[in-house]
């Protein structure tokens, strides 16, 4: 039975993720649920589920770090840290040679440079608009009447492509509508969309520069087609965690652990 445990709670714009680790950093629970209207309540729900999963009582959790855009709403947190730091720390724990982290979430994308100890050296974050985020792809999937899994199919990016010139979600959507009207095959449109989102991310990557191994985190790392396009652009393999959505929560849990021992 674990004695001192630590939790990270990432209240993102789309998903709320909880990770519990023990004092030696071993992962005991991992939960992902959709962020509801009330971030605080969702966090509590996800936390309860994770305690259940790990078979722990709340008293055994010695510190909780909240992160994500709803980090301030987590009443039971003992500290808060931005998701930018957390993704850096989380990626470092999974892939210690990480020098660059690309986190593509639902509403934000970030590129983070970390040093050999996982400490942040530099970062950049997308501006207000949803271009270059998971939300962009969701809007397009809906328009194309495709599920996220179909949209993510790596086969789509192997064939022909079309140019999607607008990076703005609203304009890109109208481009998609007119492509559909011209009977353009959906695979080609998907291919074009994946490439357009990667171009958007790429401009952020180049503003920070590529250092060491590159780790992709956030829910969009589940999109295999996008991973392929990004690797093509990068000219090398990306580190893709098994569960990319919980990397922020994992980092938060490690920050909680570190803070407890300070």
């Amino acid at each position, binding site marked *: 039975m674990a004695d001192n445990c630590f939790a990270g709670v990432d209240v993102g714009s789309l998903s709320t993720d909880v990770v519990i680790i023990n004092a030696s950093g071993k992962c005991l629970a991992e939960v992902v649920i959709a962020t509801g209207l009330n971030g605080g309540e969702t966090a509590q729900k996800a936390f309860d589920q994770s305690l259940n999963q790990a078979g722990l009582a709340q008293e055994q959790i010695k510190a909780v770090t909240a992160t994500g*855009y709803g980090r301030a709403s987590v009443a039971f947190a003992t500290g808060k*840290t*931005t998701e930018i730091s957390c993704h850096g720390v989380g990626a470092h724990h999974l892939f210690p040679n990480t020098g660059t982290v690309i986190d593509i979430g639902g509403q934000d994308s970030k590129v983070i440079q970390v040093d050999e100890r996982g*400490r*942040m050296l*530099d*970062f950049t*974050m997308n*501006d*207000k608009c949803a271009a270059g985020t998971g939300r962009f792809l969701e809007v397009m999937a809906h328009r194309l009447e495709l599920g996220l899994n179909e949209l993510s199919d790596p086969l789509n990016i192997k064939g022909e492509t079309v140019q999607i010139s607008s990076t703005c979600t609203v304009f890109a959507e109208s481009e998609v509508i007119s492509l559909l009207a011209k009977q353009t095959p959906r695979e080609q449109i998907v291919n074009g969309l994946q490439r357009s989102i990667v171009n958007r991310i790429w401009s952020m990557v180049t503003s920070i520069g590529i250092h060491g191994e590159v780790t992709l985190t956030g829910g969009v790392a589940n999109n295999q087609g996008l991973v392929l396009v990004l690797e093509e652009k990068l000219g090398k393999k990306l580190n893709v965690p098994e569960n990319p959505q919980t990397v922020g929560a994992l980092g938060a849990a490690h920050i909680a652990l570190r803070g407890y021992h300070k």
Partner: protein
Amino acid sequence: MIPNRKKYLKQQAQNGQKIMGVLPALYPRELLWAFDILPAEIWDPPGDILRANAHLQATICPIVKRGLEFILKESASVNAGYLFPHTCDSLQNLATQVKDLIGTSQPVYTFYNPKAQFNKTTRRYYLDLLQDFQTTLETKFGPLNRAKLMAACELGSKIDIRWLTLQNARRADQLELTNPEYFQLVRAGEYLKPEDYLTLLNQVEVQAGPVHQSNRRLLLSGILPPHEETLSFLDELSVTIVADDLLSGSRRFPITQLDTPVDPFEYLTDRHFLLPPCSTRASNLKERIHHLQKMISESQVHGVLFNIIKFCEPELFDHRFLVKTLKQNRVPLLSLETELLPGISGQDRTRIEAFIEMLDEQVSG
């Protein structure tokens, strides 16, 4: 207590004060004072932008948009015309548009700022520009009273000197002012009469020693300080902006103290060429970086915050180079982009917090 801008200007106008609406940024304020004109600077008037958009491209900076929106409202507190200094192409175009196409009930003046380094020719040129501006003002407001100009220069010089003292005190943590309070003080100079501004600056208490040891010290660069909510958020995070490289701030004050004015025109010319390097005067980039580095080390800041106005061509042009060079020199920096909207976005909160987390980690090793 800093008088409320709107009320103050309204009161001044009711008292018969001549008030000229002045767009950013550099102009011979002393010359206007000598004609008994109070310059009321128009940087970022609040409110929605409604009518201005019809006249401007979407990719024009919000200062120009807000400036035009203000002019279109025909504010009663501007009664002596508008002055458009040649700060950038966008403002120069706006001057032409307002004068020739859109029209306003007020006269429109322009003042050209030489975009060249200091030398004998540019010095001569600036002197000529001052004299031309004097002539223009005389046709409307009567002959210049040289004694008044002399007095205006002396007053201006006192403001500059006091300002230098306060800047140094801020750096040494000797001012008990929050970030918003500090920049309210800086910006009060945009509309107060010089004698009122000097009184205000003199009222600020400089403590004998540091009032708090701020260990999160930033240098702020850009055109304007961020919105008050962002400044307060920095206070919440125990961040102090201890020095600025703002066009609306320190870039309008000479780097060193000038001698007491003897000949007003010579004095104003010297003053102009002693202003810190600035994107809007097309200063040499190496000079700008040198100036920033000097401020960084002298004020012992931990990092630099760039507040970049969206679509501001002169600043964006320099920004790339400044960022690249500062990063090479391992100076932590954060760039925020603003459209001059009120409040602070969740994303900017995250950016700022992450930046501070990064600084703290670097400081704690």
